[in-house]
């Protein structure tokens, strides 16, 4: 008998075939397609017309810097740019070295950088140079990452870990560094404030959450009940109350004579305390997904408890809950808009203050649409990047 070799049935490709298959397959689908098109047209036409003719987008371009950084000193903006360049460099390097895992984020950053450069050009603003430079740096470091010898690569994780404290130092400044004069956090604002809170709170709360999740499964009753009590307490109250508590109570916990930290730090503390509880539950879900056999196999090899946790259990547990962890990241990003209630100027609050300027009265739609697209754009970019990362890290798991 000869072997039977057959090609799989050919798929019909092309836009026309797609249209026919998905939109015009039967007479009622044709009808529904046209109905939907008509509906979309009647709904969207006024909005598009408004945004192209009536809308006063000048409110955005005139206040763009305010939206982005609030009252951050204008002569110190180079620090923000430097943070962006460093991010570009790290993303490029990661793309070159980690390949697929970082490619999603790098591509998104590349696209965003180019888009911002174009917008800058259209608005006759000089920032297009900075954005183009960022893109150039990203691409340059990508090339560097491709040719870097394996020995230099292990530094990358360390560089990422150092990046966040470094950015905080850059933005906040320090009395001890002459060219980095301190910028008090109460004049941070806009997207800068939103992102700083998001990043710091997320970066700190994840390890705390892991500790809490492990604590919740601990055999030591004190540790276990503390963890359970903490998690349930934080999950049982609204974020707003935690923010208020952090704002009002942090000074009380400090010894007399110590100047209480300013509102931004207190807000960040509140977010960390709150977020850690949620991350703990995410991680716990992951820990439960790792089977008993994995513990037994590790024990049978003579691995100690801490080694088993760090090399066998946690890597699998965290991988299993990457979507949940990223989900918490995103919701924290959106929740930062609550800092307005303790008097901070995040991007949404800046929007409201812009509306109070006499020349831009009545531009609510423009301002809130802008804020809407900022939040949405960031989350879309983040979602895309993280999904690519999940796919890349899922290799070999099946």
């Amino acid at each position, binding site marked *: 008998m000869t072997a039977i070799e057959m090609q799989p049935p050919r798929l019909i490709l092309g836009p026309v075939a797609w249209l026919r298959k998905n939109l015009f397959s039967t007479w009622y689908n044709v009808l529904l397609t046209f109905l939907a098109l008509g509906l979309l047209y009647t709904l969207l036409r006024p909005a598009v017309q408004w945004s192209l003719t009536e809308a006063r987008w000048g409110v955005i371009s005139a206040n763009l810097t305010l939206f982005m950084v609030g009252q951050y000193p204008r002569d110190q903006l180079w620090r923000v740019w430097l943070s962006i360049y460093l991010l570009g460099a790290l993303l490029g390097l990661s793309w070159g070295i980690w390949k697929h895992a970082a490619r999603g984020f790098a591509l998104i950053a590349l696209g965003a950088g180019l888009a911002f450069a174009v917008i800058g050009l259209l608005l006759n603003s000089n920032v297009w140079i900075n954005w183009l430079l960022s893109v150039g740096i990203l691409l340059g470091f990508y090339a560097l990452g491709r040719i870097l010898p394996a020995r230099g690569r292990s530094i990358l994780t360390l560089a990422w870990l150092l990046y966040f404290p470094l950015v905080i130092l850059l933005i906040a400044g320090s009395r001890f560094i002459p060219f980095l004069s301190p910028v008090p956090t109460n004049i941070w604002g806009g997207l800068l404030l939103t992102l700083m809170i998001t990043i710091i709170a997320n970066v700190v709360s994840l390890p705390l959450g892991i500790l809490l999740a492990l604590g919740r499964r601990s055999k030591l009753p004190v540790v276990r009940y503390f963890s359970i009590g903490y998690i349930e307490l934080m999950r049982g109250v609204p974020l707003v109350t935690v923010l208020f508590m952090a704002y009002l109570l942090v000074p009380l916990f400090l010894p007399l004579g110590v100047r209480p930290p300013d509102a931004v730090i207190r807000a960040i503390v509140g977010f960390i305390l709150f977020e850690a509880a949620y991350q703990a539950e995410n991680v716990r879900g992951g820990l439960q997904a790792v089977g008993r056999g994995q513990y037994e196999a590790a024990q049978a090899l*003579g691995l100690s408890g801490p080694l088993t946790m760090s090399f066998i259990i946690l890597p699998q547990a965290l991988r299993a809950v990457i979507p949940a962890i990223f989900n918490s990241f995103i919701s924290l990003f959106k929740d930062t808009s609550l800092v307005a209630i303790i008097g901070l100027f995040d991007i949404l609050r800046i929007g409201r203050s812009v509306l109070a300027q006499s020349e831009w009265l009545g531009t609510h739609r423009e301002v809130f649409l802008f804020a809407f697209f900022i939040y949405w754009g960031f989350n879309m970019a983040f979602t895309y990047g993280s999904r690519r990362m999940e796919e890349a890290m899922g290799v070999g798991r099946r």
Partner: protein
Amino acid sequence: MSEIDDSQDIIISRDVHKWFDNFHVLKGINLNVKKGEVVVIFGPSGSGKSTFIRCINRLEEHQRGQIIVDGVELTNDIRNIEAIRSEVGMVFQQFNLFPHLTVLQNIMLAPSWVRRTPKEQARESAMQLLKRVGIPEQANKYPGQLSGGQQQRVAIARALAMQPKIMLFDEPTSALDPEMIKEVLDVMVELAKSGMTMLVVTHEMGFARAVASRMFFFDEGQIVESGTPDEIFKRPKEDRTKLFLSQILSH
């Protein structure tokens, strides 16, 4: 019970009892293994055979009696337990490979972190072990990309990487498709012939006949009968042994 000379024995178990809640799983097991012996344990499911070998490396805790492995008695002292575990390799029914690590990393992990073997040396001996179990070309794949038989051979290599004095096998071929059982048994036969001390829970009677030094028939938490393969297969004394053998050998 008469006093027996067990100074030569690498595993000594005296009157081992274990309960799962109120269920009496092990009812006084006395089973000693000499260095270099291949001991096969068989019996119906629920007879306590798996539980017994899991007591040897303390994956289960016995509640009465004594277990002494390589001169160290198993107690609650975690240092003792970890020391014994690194001397005793174990192969599981469900392989239990680490799915997030490559084959090579699975094998290198314990030697590098428990034995502090330098990376290069660990890699080299891992590759040698993979050659020994016949799949050096799979070194950089993930467990999920291998067949069951290949995974179980990796699991054997992983256990051997710690250079154990004793190997425990807990139904190593029960989760495998028939055509893959042979490739795993071949590796185990080779291992037995190399002089490894082995304690094997299995129903592969062909394997037992070929390499077992002694066999133990477990039922309801007790050793019903023991002896050389010849004695067990040709002249079983107990009715329960005869019945069980006839059931598993009939087809």
